[in-house]
């Protein structure tokens, strides 16, 4: 447990050194937020002022919160493990007296903890100024929302871990990583809320862990789901987390048995 905490801190410190990159990333998240909020609000206006329970302000809030979460949840890119498998460095991870999956999870959480404010605050502040934000006035949604966000980050790690493990069998994993990001982009609610989906697509999304990455934490944070319904959402996230982590362990064990590291 102490080791886990150390790795969280190391992850935090490692990312906090890239200051200009953090500012640049926050700027880009904000510009995309402006575009997404315009699309969301435009569509809600075209639908007569209300669409699947979102009005202009709650729709814009959805777009801004998603933009604030994109970096901490790490939607677009994580290929550290795949590179280490390709270069043979994964042998070093296996030699350490700690579980590789948990240590990388700790580093992933540390990175998220660092990015939470510098990558999340600029889009949210811009949203507050440009469109206004509809946020709950009671503390409970924030408390449950915090749990939901941590779960979202961890589920994201579990999924990326699985995608990276492909490197044990395939040398070039770019095509697979692209397919992962593509499916995630639609089904997580990254662009359009899952609640707007036609029924068949909503069913498809529910069969994947992707809504647990963005739609779930935003629903809990904005109190779109409350009380037992909110606990239900957290339960679904926790179940996906257990599932992807467990599957990740099994596949990793298979991969390492197959692994041949060239000497050097």
């Amino acid at each position, binding site marked *: 447990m102490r080791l886990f905490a150390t790795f969280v801190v190391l992850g935090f410190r490692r990312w906090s050194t890239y200051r200009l990159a953090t500012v640049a990333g926050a700027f*880009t998240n904000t510009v995309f937020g402006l575009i997404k909020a315009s699309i969301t609000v435009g569509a809600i206006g075209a639908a007569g002022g209300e669409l699947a329970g979102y009005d202009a302000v709650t729709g814009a809030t959805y777009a801004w919160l998603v933009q604030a979460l994109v970096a901490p949840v790490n939607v677009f890119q994580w290929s550290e493990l795949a590179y280490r498998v390709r270069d043979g460095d994964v042998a070093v991870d296996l030699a350490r007296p700690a579980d590789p999956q948990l240590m990388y999870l700790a580093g992933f959480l540390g990175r998220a903890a660092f990015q939470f404010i510098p990558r999340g605050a600029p889009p949210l502040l811009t949203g507050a100024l440009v469109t206004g934000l509809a946020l709950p006035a009671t503390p409970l949604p924030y408390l449950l929302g915090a749990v939901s966000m941590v779960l979202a980050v961890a589920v994201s790690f579990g999924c990326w871990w699985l995608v990276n493990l492909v490197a044990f069998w395939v040398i070039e994993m770019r095509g697979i990583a692209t397919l992962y990001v593509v*499916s995630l982009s639609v089904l997580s609610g990254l662009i359009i809320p899952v609640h707007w989906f036609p029924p068949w697509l909503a069913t498809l999304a529910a069969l994947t862990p992707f809504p647990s990455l963005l739609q779930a934490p935003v629903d809990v944070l904005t109190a779109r789901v409350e009380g037992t319904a909110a606990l239900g959402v957290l339960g679904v996230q926790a179940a996906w987390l257990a599932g992807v982590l467990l599957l990740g362990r099994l596949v990793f064990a298979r991969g390492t048995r197959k692994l041949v590291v060239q000497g050097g």
Partner: protein
Amino acid sequence: MGERLRPYRVLVGSRMRSQTAYRRSFVSDVLGSVGIGLMEFAEVYIVFANVDVLGGLDFAAAALLFALANLGFSLADMVAGHADRLPVYLREGTLDAFLLRPLPVLAQLITSDVSLRRLGRCAVAVAVFAVALPLNDIDWTPGRVALAVVAPLAAAAIFAGLFVCAAAVQFWLVEGAEFASAFTYGGAYAAGYPASIFSLPMRLLFTFVVPAAFTAYLPVLVLLDLPGPAGLPQWLGWCTPLAALAIWAVALAGWRAGLRHYTGTGS
């Protein structure tokens, strides 16, 4: 002329052979690229599953808009998209090798990697374009036929110019490369939606600073004979090639300034 282009033909040819050498990984890359195109179209589809008209465009018109914006961007991305890897080249000293050769550095950078896998996304855009054109009620005149042919090419030139602008900025902001993404990828994203849904300042930003509206929205207004929103009269749609020339003038000036600013990594 043919003799002067020979080095580039050799460079591009070698890149193409190397990308297609590993058949399976090339196929999976192309499929990934098709997936990106489909995902972006899915977004338009989901919006129109909920509303009939967005920003004055119905689904057929929005599909035409999507196709023009996406075709322009994916062509530019295939030819010049890797220009945003310039910070990597700067850090690794690859650019120093370009400087040693007796060829223009920008031409070398662009021909250093033509990403054939991005053909997948172009194919999706072409397919949507082919389906959307007859679905829309277009009053074909010789001018509109010419615009329908020229607009995707001019759009590709505009996005390629944006990539070069973004690369030029990176000579100063090696660590802050993502600033430029806001304008290249952000511009491409905004280009796929009717500019009329944006607030007036954003509309002007994505027309006259980042000329994204010229790539698709303004030509679509001309093709469908629709009036433009405040600040964007329809006739601007005819100016798409001019917008491409303007952005390239800025891009080349910026690139030259950036290269002069560059002092090497000292490696």
